C-alpha cells in the first residue's frame, strides 16, 4: 500500500531485561491524524523514541515510505520527514523566535556559517506556512506557552515533515488554545502531513483523530477508525477495567448548615485579582476553573500565603487570618497541592517518610531535635491511611507511580492537620486508573475530616464529577458559580468558550 507512511511491525524493546514494547505494530497513513492512546507507563513514549530513532528496537521492523529502515537514527528519522514536538517543546529560550525557527534548517543543510538574513527569511516563511502571527525578534523565553508551541510547530513544518508527532500537546493549554491548535493540526493535515497525536485525554482524542491505536503494557490492545470508539471503550482498553463515575453530593448534616470553614471577603491583588468572595463549608468540594491567566492559580497562591500584598479579608473557621507567608497559611490550616507534582511537590530521591514529614518537622521538633518515635507513629499511620502501595516508608518516592506520589503529597498535608485543602490540577499526568482512586480519596477526606476542598482544574468533567459547586473565573474575577447538580460539562464548556 503506497499510502502508508510509517509501518512498525512487531517491534520489541527491552530495558535491562524488562519488556517495554512487546510485539507492537503501528501503521500511520499519509496525511491522517492518528491518535496513540495509553496510560502513563503504557509504552507510549518508548514508541515515540523508536519512531524518532532515539531508541533502537531489539526486534521487529520499521518501514518508512514502504522501505525498510535498518538502523534509524535521530538524524535519518528527521531526513525521512519525522518530526517530534516534545512536551517541553525543546526550544531555546535565550534565542529569538527567528533563530529558533531557522536553526533546524541550517543544521539540516549542514551549514557552518550563520546567515542572519537567510535566518530571517526562513522564519518569515515558517510563520507564513503556519498562518500565524509571531514576533520574530522576541526572545522565546518571553512567550506564553501557547506561543512557544506555535514556534515548535512552525519549526517542525519547516523541515518538510511528512509525520509530526505531538507528545501530550494540550497539557498546558487552555480550552481556547486547544481549539486553535486543533485548527492548525487539521490545516497541516490538509497538506498531506500525517499527525501522531499522543495523549491520554479522551475527549480530545475523540475530537481530533481519525484513527486510534491504544497501547497497554507495551502491547497494542486496540486499533481502528475513531468511529468505532467512545469514551468508555477507550478507557476500558487503556486500563483493562471499567470505571464508573458517581457525582459528588454534599449534604449538610441533618438540617443545620455548618459555618464556613474558609471565607474570602473581597480579596484582591493589584492587577491580578479583583473582589473575590467565596465561602467553603466543611465537607464541601468546590471546583475552580477558568482559562490560564484568569488568576485561578494566583487566587490559590494568595490563600497559601505566597502573595502577601493582597487586600480584603480571609477567614478560617470564622476567625480572620492574615496570610503573609506560607508559614502563616500552614498555621491557619491551609494546605496546597501544587500543579506540578514532580517539580513542586516532591523530593524525589528522598524517602516516603521524609516527604510526608517535610512540613511538620518543625512541630515534631520544637527545639530542632526530632522525636523519632513520634515521627514513626505519624508516618506509619499516614502510610496506611493513604493506602500507599510501597514496600515501606523508607522507599524513595521516585520509585512510586504518579497516583501513589500524589497520595504522599496529600498525606503530607493531612499530617499538618490541614482543614482547608487546595488542589491545583490534582490529576494532571495521572493515568485514568489512578485518577479515579485519587478522586475517591479526596471525597473520603472531605467527608471524614470535614475538609474544605478547593479543586482547581482545566478538566471540566473532573470538576463536574467531583465538586458540589463550581466557580468560574475570568480576568481575576469570580464570574459564575453553579451547583454541579444543576449543570453539565457542556454548559460549563460553553461558558468557558465565551471568555476571551
Amino acid at each position: 500500500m503506497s499510502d502508508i507512511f510509517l509501518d512498525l511491525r512487531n517491534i520489541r524493546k527491552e530495558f535491562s531485561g524488562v519488556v517495554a514494547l512487546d510485539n507492537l505494530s503501528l501503521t500511520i497513513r499519509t496525511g491522517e491524524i492518528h491518535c496513540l492512546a495509553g496510560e502513563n507507563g503504557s509504552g507510549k513514549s518508548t514508541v515515540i523514541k523508536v519512531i524518532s530513532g532515539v531508541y533502537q528496537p531489539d526486534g521487529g521492523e520499521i518501514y518508512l515510505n514502504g522501505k525498510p529502515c535498518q538502523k534509524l537514527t535521530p538524524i535519518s528519522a528527521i531526513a525521512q520527514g519525522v518530526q517530534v514536538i516534545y512536551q517541553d517543546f525543546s526550544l531555546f529560550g535565550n534565542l529569538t523566535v527567528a533563530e529558533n525557527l531557522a536553526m533546524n534548517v541550517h543544521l539540516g543543510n549542514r551549514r557552518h556559517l550563520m546567515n542572519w538574513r537567510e535566518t530571517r527569511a526562513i522564519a518569515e516563511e515558517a510563520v507564513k506556512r503556519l498562518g500565524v502571527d509571531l514576533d520574530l525578534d522576541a526572545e522565546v523565553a518571553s512567550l506564553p506557552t501557547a506561543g512557544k508551541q506555535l514556534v515548535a510547530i512552525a519549526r517542525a513544518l519547516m523541515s518538510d515533515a511528512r509525520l509530526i508527532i505531538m507528545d501530550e500537546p494540550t497539557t498546558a493549554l487552555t480550552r481556547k488554545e486547544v481549539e486553535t491548535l486543533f485548527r492548525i493540526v487539521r490545516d497541516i493535515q490538509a497538506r498531506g502531513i500525517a499527525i501522531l497525536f499522543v495523549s491520554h485525554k479522551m475527549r480530545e482524542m475523540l475530537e481530533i483523530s481519525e484513527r486510534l491505536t491504544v497501547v497497554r503494557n507495551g502491547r497494542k490492545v486496540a486499533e481502528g477508525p475513531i468511529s468505532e470508539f467512545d469514551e468508555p471503550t477507550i478507557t476500558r482498553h487503556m486500563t483493562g477495567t471499567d470505571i464508573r463515575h458517581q457525582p459528588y453530593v454534599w449534604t449538610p448534616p441533618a438540617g443545620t448548615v455548618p459555618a464556613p470553614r474558609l471565607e474570602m471577603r473581597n480579596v484582591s491583588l493589584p492587577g491580578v485579582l479583583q473582589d473575590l468572595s467565596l465561602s467553603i463549608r466543611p465537607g464541601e468540594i468546590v471546583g475552580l476553573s477558568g482559562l490560564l491567566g484568569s488568576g485561578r492559580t494566583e487566587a490559590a497562591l494568595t490563600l497559601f500565603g505566597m502573595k502577601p500584598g493582597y487586600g480584603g479579608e480571609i477567614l478560617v473557621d470564622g476567625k480572620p487570618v492574615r496570610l503573609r507567608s506560607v508559614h502563616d497559611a500552614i498555621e491557619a490550616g491551609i494546605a496546597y497541592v501544587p500543579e506540578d507534582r514532580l517539580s513542586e511537590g516532591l523530593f524525589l530521591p528522598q524517602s516516603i517518610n521524609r516527604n510526608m514529614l517535610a512540613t511538620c518537622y518543625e512541630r515534631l521538633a520544637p527545639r530542632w531535635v526530632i522525636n523519632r518515635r513520634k515521627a514513626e507513629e505519624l508516618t506509619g499511620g499516614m502510610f496506611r491511611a493513604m493506602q500507599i502501595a510501597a514496600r515501606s516508608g523508607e522507599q524513595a518516592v521516585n520509585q512510586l507511580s504518579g497516583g501513589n506520589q500524589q497520595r504522599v503529597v496529600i498525606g503530607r498535608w493531612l499530617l499538618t492537620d490541614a482543614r482547608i485543602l487546595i488542589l491545583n490540577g490534582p490529576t494532571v499526568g495521572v493515568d485514568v486508573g489512578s485518577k479515579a482512586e485519587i478522586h475517591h480519596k479526596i471525597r473520603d477526606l472531605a467527608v471524614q475530616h470535614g475538609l474544605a476542598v478547593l479543586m482547581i482544574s482545566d478538566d471540566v468533567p473532573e470538576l463536574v464529577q467531583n465538586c458540589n459547586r463550581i466557580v468560574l473565573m475570568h480576568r481575576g474575577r469570580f464570574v459564575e458559580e453553579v451547583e454541579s447538580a444543576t449543570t453539565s460539562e457542556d454548559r460549563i464548556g460553553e461558558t468557558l468558550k465565551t471568555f476571551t
Partner: protein
Amino acid sequence: MNTELNSGPKNGFDIRRLINRDNNIVQLLLMTVLIFVVMTALSPDKFLRYYNFESLTYLFPELGLLAIAMMIAMLTGGIDLSVVGIANLSGILAGVIFHKIAGDSGVAGTGFPTVLLGIGVAIATGAVAGAINGLLITRMNITPILATLGTGQVYTGLAVVLTGGPAIVGFPDMWSFIGNGKILGLATPFVLFLVLMVLLAWVLTRTTFGINLMLIGTNPKAALFAGLKRERMVLYSYILTGVLGSIAGIMLSGRTNAAKSDYGTSYLLQAVLIAVLGGTNPAGGKGSVIGVSIAVIALMLLSSGFTILRFSNHLVDFIWGAFLLLVIALNAWKNRGR
C-alpha cells in the same frame, strides 16, 4: 512516562542502591586500607612509625573541618569558596587582638580570659562572614559560586590589609594548645575534631535543620511549597560553614603559631575534593559527615605517604588533583548505562 514498566528495574536498582549507600562507606574504608597497605609496602620503616600517625592527628582535623564545611554548603546545592579566607581572617583577627592587648610584654603568656576573648572573636568572625555569604545568597539571590568567590576575595583582602603583608607571628601558649596540645594522650585538634564530627553528624541526621537542608537541596521549589523556611535554613547553613571555617583557622594558627592571609590556599581544592570523594553530591541533597571524615583520613594517609617518599608538596598537589579526576572518572564508569 514509563513508571509502570520501569518499576521492575528501578526496584532492582533500589536494592543495589541500598547496598551501594553503605557500600560508599565500605568503599571508602577499603580505599583507606588499600592506601595504608601500599604505603606500608613502599616504605615500611618510615610510614609505620607511631610519630607519623601522631603527626597526622595534628594535621588532618583542620582540613577535615573545612571539608565538612564544604559538604554542608553543598547539601543545599551551594559551595563555599570563601571558607579558607574565613579561616585565615579569623586567625588573623584573633592574633591582632592578642598583640594589641599584650603590647610589648609578648603574647606567649596571655591569660585565659584574653584567649577566650580571642576564640570568641574568631568564631564571631566566622559567623558574621558566613552570615554575609548566606544573606548574599538568600536575599540578593546571588549564585553561591559567585557570592563566595567575591566574599572570599574580600575576606582574604581584609586579612592582607590587617597583616599589611607579612604574617602575624606568635600566639598565646594556651592558643597553641588548641593546635599542638594533648588531651588524655591524644592530639587536641583530633579530640576537637571527633567531638565536632559526632555533633555535626547528629545535627545533620536528627534535627529539623539537618533534614531541612537535605530536602531543600533535593528540590528547592518543592521545599517552598512544603512551607520549609528555605532562606533561613540556607542562611544558618552558611553561618555554620563559616563557624567551622573559623574553628579550622584557630587550629591552623594554633598549630603553626602564626596567621597569614595566604595560608592553606591549596586547602580549598582539597576541601572540595574530600567532600566529593566522601560521597557528597555537589548538586545538593546528599552528603554525610562520616563519609567526609573517612575521605579526609584516606587522603591524608596518601599525602603523608608521598611526603615520606620524598615527593615535593607540589607533586602532592598534583596527586590530589589527579585523584579528584580519577574519582570522577571511576564514578562515571560505575554509573554508566544507567
